């Protein structure tokens, strides 16, 4: 697939933005400014940026909780996200929800409900709506390796396959579900093999290569858009931080982390852009400066934003209150 220079540069920008924004969340969490917990996608940003970028404006994403890149790519601003993390009224959910539990249909993003893989059937349902209405739209739903052991994974995949729905199922295989390594989660080597049970094509991609993820997702989107049905894409990557920012992840062998560190997705993309003379060191530094500024501004915005009013607690339970 031929990718335009501007897209490649954008992919780099979003990788950087995702990384820097989440790093800021981490530091704010350690400062006690983000309460409860903070999860980052550190080391796996290429997955969310890659598949998020593969979607068209009219498409819909049903991300999971390490998909910061999807929010950003789809246009939810760092300001609103930062305010979300700080529990402010200006956050994406006005303080009702915390951190990664972000959803906004104006940006085609479905809110992640914590319970892993619940979004697989939900995603299938969005695709069903497109199919019923005869729209050429696609949905992408993502979960972790852990999430693929849940019943809803099975029911969502199966339903989508029977009806050949326009959906791309993504799996962020970052080797662990919290502390649980793959071999305690499943008896298969490749999660892509799960798709054999549904006659859904199962692809395996390098989850640290944003271009590979983007390309595979884009192709799968086009297949789905053309009535070819679902694809399952396993993105092999590695969670480089703890499960959440309070977890030191002692259960992960240091060597494993060392090995994956060399494959850092940002580094990888940087090299690709520079070695192929697609971009210059200068341009990339400019991008990084822009990103830093955006993150700083986001933090300032959030810090200045008011908390929601206590009475807001009672509002919004129903769309049609009685």
């Amino acid at each position, binding site marked *: 697939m031929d990718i335009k220079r501007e897209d490649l540069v954008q992919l780099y920008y979003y990788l950087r933005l995702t990384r820097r924004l989440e790093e800021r969340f981490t530091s704010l969490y350690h400062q006690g400014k983000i309460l409860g917990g903070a999860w980052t996608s550190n080391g796996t940003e290429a997955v969310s940026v890659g598949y998020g970028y593969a979607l068209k404006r009219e498409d819909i994403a049903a991300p999971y909780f390490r998909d910061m890149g999807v929010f950003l790519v789809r246009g939810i601003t760092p300001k609103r996200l930062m305010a979300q993390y700080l529990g402010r009224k200006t956050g994406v959910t*006005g303080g009702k929800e915390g951190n990664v539990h972000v959803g*906004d249909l104006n940006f085609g993003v479905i*809110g992640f409900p914590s319970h892993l893989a619940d979004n697989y059937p939900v995603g299938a*349902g969005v695709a069903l709506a497109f199919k019923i209405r005869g729209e050429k739209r696609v949905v992408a739903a993502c979960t972790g390796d852990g999430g693929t052991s849940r019943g809803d994974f099975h029911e969502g995949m199966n339903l989508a396959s029977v009806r050949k729905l326009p959906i791309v199922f993504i799996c962020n295989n970052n080797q662990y579900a919290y502390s649980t390594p793959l071999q305690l989660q499943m008896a298969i080597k490749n999660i892509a093999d799960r798709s054999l049970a549904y006659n859904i094509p199962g692809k395996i991609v390098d989850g640290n290569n944003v271009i590979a993820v983007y390309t595979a997702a884009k192709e799968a989107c086009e297949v789905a858009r053309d009535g070819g049905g679902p694809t399952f894409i396993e993105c092999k990557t590695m969670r480089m931080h703890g499960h959440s920012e309070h977890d030191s992840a002692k259960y992960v062998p240091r060597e494993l982390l060392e090995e994956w560190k060399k494959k850092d997705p940002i580094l990888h993309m940087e090299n690709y852009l520079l070695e192929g003379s697609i971009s210059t060191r200068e341009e990339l530094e400019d991008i990084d400066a822009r990103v830093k500024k955006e993150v700083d501004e986001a933090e300032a915005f959030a810090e200045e934003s008011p908390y929601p009013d206590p009475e807001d607690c009672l509002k*919004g339970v129903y769309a049609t209150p009685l």
Partner: protein
Amino acid sequence: MKEITYLEAIKQAMDEEMTRDPGVFILGEDVGIFGGAFRATEGFLEKYGTWRVIDTPLSESGFTGAAIGAALAGMRPIVEMQFADFITCSFDQLVTVAAKNHYRWGAATPIVVRAPCGGNIHGGPFHSQCIEGYFFNVPGLKIVFPSTVYDAKGLLKAAIRDNDPVIYCEHKYLYRRIKDSIPEEDYVVPIGKARVALEGNDVSVITYGAMVYTALEAAQRLKEQGCSVEVIDLRTLLPLDNKSLFDTVKKTNKVVVLHEQTKTGGVGAEVSALINEYCFDYLDGPIIRIAAPDTPVPYSPPLEEAFIPQVKDVVFAVEKLMRY
């Protein structure tokens, strides 16, 4: 006007709404080719096609989740549970996803889940349950439970047009046992409004579903004894219509709450607590709850009869209150 059954009313409501709004569609097990285990969607597949009458794989969580997704994408799905009992398998999708979408991130989830429930049909523990208790402590859901042909149609239409997830409990015992003639024109019965099924002055029996008929029969017997019973049909269980509850209490000052659902943690507990809290000074006696005992629904006829509240139980409770 021709008389139709409770089941036919349900069917008509779906049919008319599907004709009116292309966003309405149905999914569930055997709703298409077979027309539904209880025939509520008979002929729909032919009329609306395989994309609006969807025979799903056997996967309640999956197709309920799919309904939620379709709703988020602008559709108005109707999910049919083959029996209400199987809704346990989609508990997570309903409670975690559907109920909380709007509060959490502002997205409306207009789905209707039809739950054929209730006993007296020799169905045993898994084909007889009332399931409102599972969802009654879940903010964000609405629960309705019609007892009449008129309400069966009007509440289903209201549920389909409502922007929130609605669990529509339909009592299997009533499907073909009650008939009525209803208006030909389009109408809805608003969600959130109880109904006075019978006016009376001495004691209020607050109930819903098939038990409305038990209450009415008890009222008839009690009338012969000179006792005037008011029967309130809740119709909507979540959220409850507090005003109607309080109105009847203020009038009669004596209350029996009656339901087929098991007693502990049932809707009756909430009704009792609300009345106690807000109408204490109007109460001339304890609020007596009559409900199924805290057991699964047994199969064998003598056991099932012992399980389901009977007319005599209501009469007995009212008499007790009258002596109070």
